[in-house]
């Protein structure tokens, strides 16, 4: 199997990016974005995760199978959140008398 060896330089670049994103997280939390605060925070967090998985956990240099499994895990997380939201978003649709 081909082994991808990350250079110190790549690792440092990724580390720098992660630090920038950390600043972005704190900054975004201070901005008055209203309901957008949450999605923005999630987007930044997801970007950090992807960087860590691909570089620090060496997903870039691995075979298709490993990538598929990691992809499936990510998909499962999305599936879980979407189906939980199915409950939360439709809870108030049914008008209850006297409420």
């Amino acid at each position, binding site marked *: 199997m081909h082994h991808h060896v990350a250079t110190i330089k790549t690792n440092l670049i990724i580390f720098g990016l992660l630090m920038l994103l950390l600043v972005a997280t704190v900054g975004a939390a201070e901005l008055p974005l209203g309901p957008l605060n949450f999605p923005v925070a999630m987007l930044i967090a997801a970007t950090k995760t992807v960087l860590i998985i691909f570089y620090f956990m060496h997903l870039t240099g691995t075979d298709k199978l490993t990538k598929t499994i990691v992809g499936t895990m990510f998909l499962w997380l999305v599936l879980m959140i979407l*189906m*939980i939201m*199915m409950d939360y978003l*439709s809870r108030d649709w049914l008008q209850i008398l006297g409420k």
Partner: protein
Amino acid sequence: MSTTVLDQTAAAGHKPPKPHRETYLDAWTVKSWLLTTDHKRIGILYLISITVFFLIGGVAATTMRLELMTPKGDLLSSPDAYNRMFTLHGVAMIFFFLVPSIPATLGNFLLPLMIGARDLAFPIINLMSWYMYMIGGSIAIAIILFGGIDTGWTFYTPFSTMFSNTLVVPAAFAVFFAGFSSIFTGFNFIVTVHTMRAPGMTWFRLPLFIWAHYATSLIMILGTPVLAIAVMLIAVERLLRVGIFDPALGGDPILFQHLFWFYSHPAVYIMVLPGMGVISEIVPCFSRRPIFGYRFIAYSSIALAILGFIVWGHHLFVSGQSMYAGLVFSFLSFLVAVPSAIKVFNWTATMHKGAIRFDTPMLYAIGFIGLFTVGGLTGIMLSTLAVDVHLHDTYFVVAHFHYVMVGGAVLAYLGGLHFWWPKITGRMYPEMFGKLSALAVFIGFNFTFFPQFILGYLGMPRRYFEYAPEFQVLNVMSTAGASVLAFGYGLPLIYFLWSLRKPPSAPANPWQATGLEWQTESPPPTHNFEFTPKVEKAPYSYSPVAVEGFDGYGDHGSH
């Protein structure tokens, strides 16, 4: 196929002289067991450990059944003691017995043998899995000794985070560790199946036991992390008062049910899919027929693993979940019946016109098919929205999942243990007692749990310490059945241990079965095969002719 194989098969029929040969059981020092990386030995470590938890869970069940003989609470000191008892039963049986039962014992032992490998892909991680289990198990035993926990095995919030003053946080850690032991097992199995199959062992030549374990492993790695996080969040909320599930702190108690059941419904398939794999091995062997619809059974295992993940909301129909989400979850739950039925029909079709032999493993397998069908169909009843409003939290639910978990998973486990006992230990068990145990388990099981369907339908709630006097007759029936069931469980425990007193004498292939695991000696050598297995045919190439020389326990038995 190599000539070695043919020689062994030919020698299986009569009593061969047994010069000493190297087997995986040779070393008997403590170190040779506790530091072993041999998948077969780790399987045995697991076998012993889960038996201990089965006994603990069994004692709790017995206590509950004795308490429920009378409507008044008279055996246990308080309702709280009863709460701790059913929680102990649930936690021990689910997390420390059923989840690891078949995968960690039979799966560990057989998966490399069945695909013609020397071991699992990561032997040290396999050993670490057992240590994770033991850490979780030790915490669980400490909890029992220091006062127990009363939340039920489901740890529902807000009770578990706000009100219970029992050992909830240690229990969360126990479950966390047990969870990681199954993640380790699952990912080891997946890598092994992908990378270590013998030459010629293509995906569609894999035994269905392997397909079932592959599907189970997928659930283990995709679902278990969510459970681990959910129980950790309980610990976080209890210890640090961070608002996650508690409405007073801005949380939502139903969120816990979502997270918990996102794992725990698929966990039903962690428990029953490996059992289905066992049945798919036993039924063709004792019917002397190739399995009917191989690909359908293989794909239905994967289908169950996937569908199992999108039905969890059927546990929340009356919990305050949106009714529209309930509708979707109800519909999706019905879909699970399709792959389950495919399996049941295909096993039945395999038996059709077969030369059926009613040896112990087959008796257990037939019991599985019938009881799992009852458990599955009552599951359909429960996933019907309106019916569930009536039956939710009654004994009907208790009966339903025991038909799946005990009638399904435990019967398959016992059937598999009998089927592969000669391979694992090199000893035969006394067939007559085997049949007696299968019969006692089947009869005792139905006597225990069928009355509970009626009790639940009549409205008796589960988890109650005392009950209305008109329910007593059915409860006494249930307790009487449980004692027959306990007898059926006790028998194998005794005769399996008893069979170990003599040196190994079982033939390599006592059932004239076709799998690779039967082509090596019983018990297998440390490196599994003395030759490199090569696979040239489809699995389950049984024909009635092969019955010749099928002496089963024959002259190697213990009479």
